[in-house]
C-alpha cells in the first residue's frame, strides 16, 4: 500500500512541478473550445446544439496531449526498469500512472467544462450530466491512452503514431459520453447512455493495465 | 453490354474503382515480391560464391 502511495505521489509531484505539463492540457482545452465559435459562427442556438460534442472532443484531444510523456521519460532514464524489478506488479504500476495522469489532466477538465459550457450556451439541464459524464468517461481516456503510450514508448517521433493508435479506441467513450450530455440537454432519458459509458469505463479500467504492462515488458525485453 | 438504364454511370464507376484498387494491391504486392526475391538471390549467391 505504501509503495502504491509512494509511486502515486511521485507521479503527481513530477507532473505538478514546473515543466511537468499539468495545466497545459487545461489551456489546450480552453483554446479548442474558444476556436469552435470562430469556426462555426457565433449563433447561440447552433452553439447550444454542438456544445456537448465540442466539449467532449476538446476533452479527448486535451487528454491526448500529455500522453506521450506517460512512460517516455521513465523508459529513457531507466526508472521503468527499476520499477519493473520492484515487487509491485507492472500492471499495478501502469494503473497508478494512468490514474495520476487522470488526476492531472482529466480531473481539471471535469472542473473546467461547465464554465466553458456557459460560453457555448449549453442548455441548463445538461450541466450536471456534463460533469458526471466527463467524470465517469475521462478515466477511460487516460487508461486507454496508457496502452497507446506503452506501445509507442521506445519509438522516436511516437507522438503522431500514438494519436493514430489511441483515437480510434476513444470512439465508444466519445459516443456514449456525448450522448449523455445531448440527451440531458434535449430532456430525453439519459440513463441508457450513461450506463453504457460507465460500462465501457469499467471494462477499460479492468483490461488496459494488462495490455499496457504486456506492451511495456515487450519493450524492455 | 447489358442495358444498365439510368444507373449505368453508377455501376461502371463502382466496378472501375474496384478494379483500380485490386490492381493496385496486386501490383504493389508483386513488385515488392520480385524486388525482395532478387535481393535474397543476390545475397545468397554472394555468400555461396
Amino acid at each position, binding site marked *: 500500500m505504501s509503495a502504491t502511495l509512494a509511486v502515486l505521489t511521485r507521479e503527481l509531484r513530477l507532473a505538478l512541478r514546473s515543466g511537468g505539463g499539468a495545466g497545459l492540457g487545461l489551456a489546450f482545452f480552453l483554446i479548442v473550445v474558444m476556436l469552435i465559435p470562430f469556426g462555426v459562427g457565433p449563433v447561440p442556438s447552433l452553439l447550444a446544439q454542438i456544445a456537448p460534442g465540442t466539449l467532449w472532443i476538446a476533452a479527448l484531444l486535451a487528454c491526448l496531449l500529455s500522453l506521450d510523456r506517460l512512460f517516455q521519460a521513465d523508459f529513457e532514464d531507466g526508472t521503468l526498469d527499476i520499477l519493473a524489478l520492484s515487487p509491485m506488479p507492472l500492471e499495478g504500476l501502469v494503473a497508478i500512472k494512468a490514474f495520476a495522469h487522470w488526476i492531472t489532466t482529466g480531473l481539471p477538465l471535469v472542473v473546467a467544462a461547465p464554465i466553458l459550457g456557459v460560453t457555448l450556451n449549453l442548455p441548463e439541464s445538461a450541466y450536471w450530466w456534463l460533469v458526471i459524464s466527463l467524470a465517469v468517461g475521462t478515466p477511460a481516456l487516460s487508461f486507454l491512452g496508457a496502452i497507446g503510450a506503452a506501445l509507442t514508448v521506445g519509438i522516436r517521433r511516437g507522438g503522431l503514431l500514438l494519436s*493514430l493508435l489511441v483515437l*480510434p479506441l476513444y470512439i465508444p467513450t466519445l459516443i456514449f459520453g456525448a450522448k449523455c450530455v445531448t440527451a440531458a440537454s434535449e430532456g430525453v432519458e439519459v440513463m441508457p447512455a450513461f450506463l453504457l459509458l460507465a460500462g465501457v469505463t469499467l471494462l477499460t479500467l479492468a483490461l488496459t493495465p494488462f495490455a499496457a504492462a504486456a506492451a511495456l515488458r515487450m519493450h524492455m*525485453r | 453490354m*447489358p442495358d444498365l438504364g439510368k*444507373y449505368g454511370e453508377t455501376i461502371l464507376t*463502382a466496378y472501375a474503382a*474496384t478494379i483500380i484498387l485490386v490492381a493496385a494491391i496486386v501490383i504493389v504486392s508483386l513488385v515488392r515480391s520480385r524486388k*525482395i526475391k532478387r535481393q*535474397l538471390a543476390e545475397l545468397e549467391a554472394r555468400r555461396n560464391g
Partner: protein
Amino acid sequence: MSIWEFANPVRFMRLTGKVLPWITALAIACLAIGLIWGFFFTPEAINFGSTVKIIYIHVPAATFAINAWALMFVASMIWLVRRHHVSALVARAAAPVGMVMTLIALITGAIWGEPMWGTYWEWDPRLTSFLVLFVFYLGYMALWEAIDEPDKAADLTSVLAMVGTVFAVISRYAVNFWNQGLHQGASLSLDKEEHVADVYYIPLLFALAGFFLLFLALVFLRTRTEIRARRIKALQLQEAN
C-alpha cells in the same frame, strides 16, 4: 502431420510455392464467372434497378474486410501463444489486403448510396463502422512500420490487434446506439428465409469464392515476401558480424 508443421518457414514456403499458382488461377476463374455472370446476365431488381450489380463487389469486399481482421486477430494470438514467426508475418501480410477490401466496400457503398439514398455519404452505422475499421488498419500498419526489431514489432502489433478487436467490436455496437441507419439488413445468411433471390445468389457465391481466393493468394504472396525479407535481414546481420 499437424497444422503446426506449416509454422516452419521452409515448409510454409514449399507448400505455398506449390499451391499459389493454382489458387491464383482458381481466383481469376471464379471472379470471371461471378462478375461476368453478375454483370451481364442478371435481371434488374425491383427495388434497386440495375444497381443490384454492385452487390457482386460490395458484399464480397465487405465480407473479407472483416474476415481479414479476424485472420489478423487469430494469427496474432498464435504468435503471442506459440511464437511461430510465420503466424506473425501472416498477420502483417493480411493488413494491407484487408485495408484495400475495406476501402472497396466503402467506395462502392458510397457510389451505390448516391442513387439509392440520395447521398454519397451518410453517417449510417455500417458505413461508419467500416470507416472505423479502416482507421484501425491504418494504425496497425503504421505500428509495424515504426518498429525496427522484427520480434518486438510482432509482439506489439499483436497486442494492438487484441485491443483493437475488442474496441472495434464495441465501436460497432456503439455506433448502432448513436444512429439508426439506412443500410439494408444482412442480405446473406445461413438462414434460408432471408437471403436474396437465387438469380442473384449463385453468381454472388462465385464472386465471394473469387474474392476469398484472391485474398488467400495475396496473403500467401505477401507472407512469402515477408519471410524472404526476414531472411535477408538475418543474412545481413550475419555478414555485419
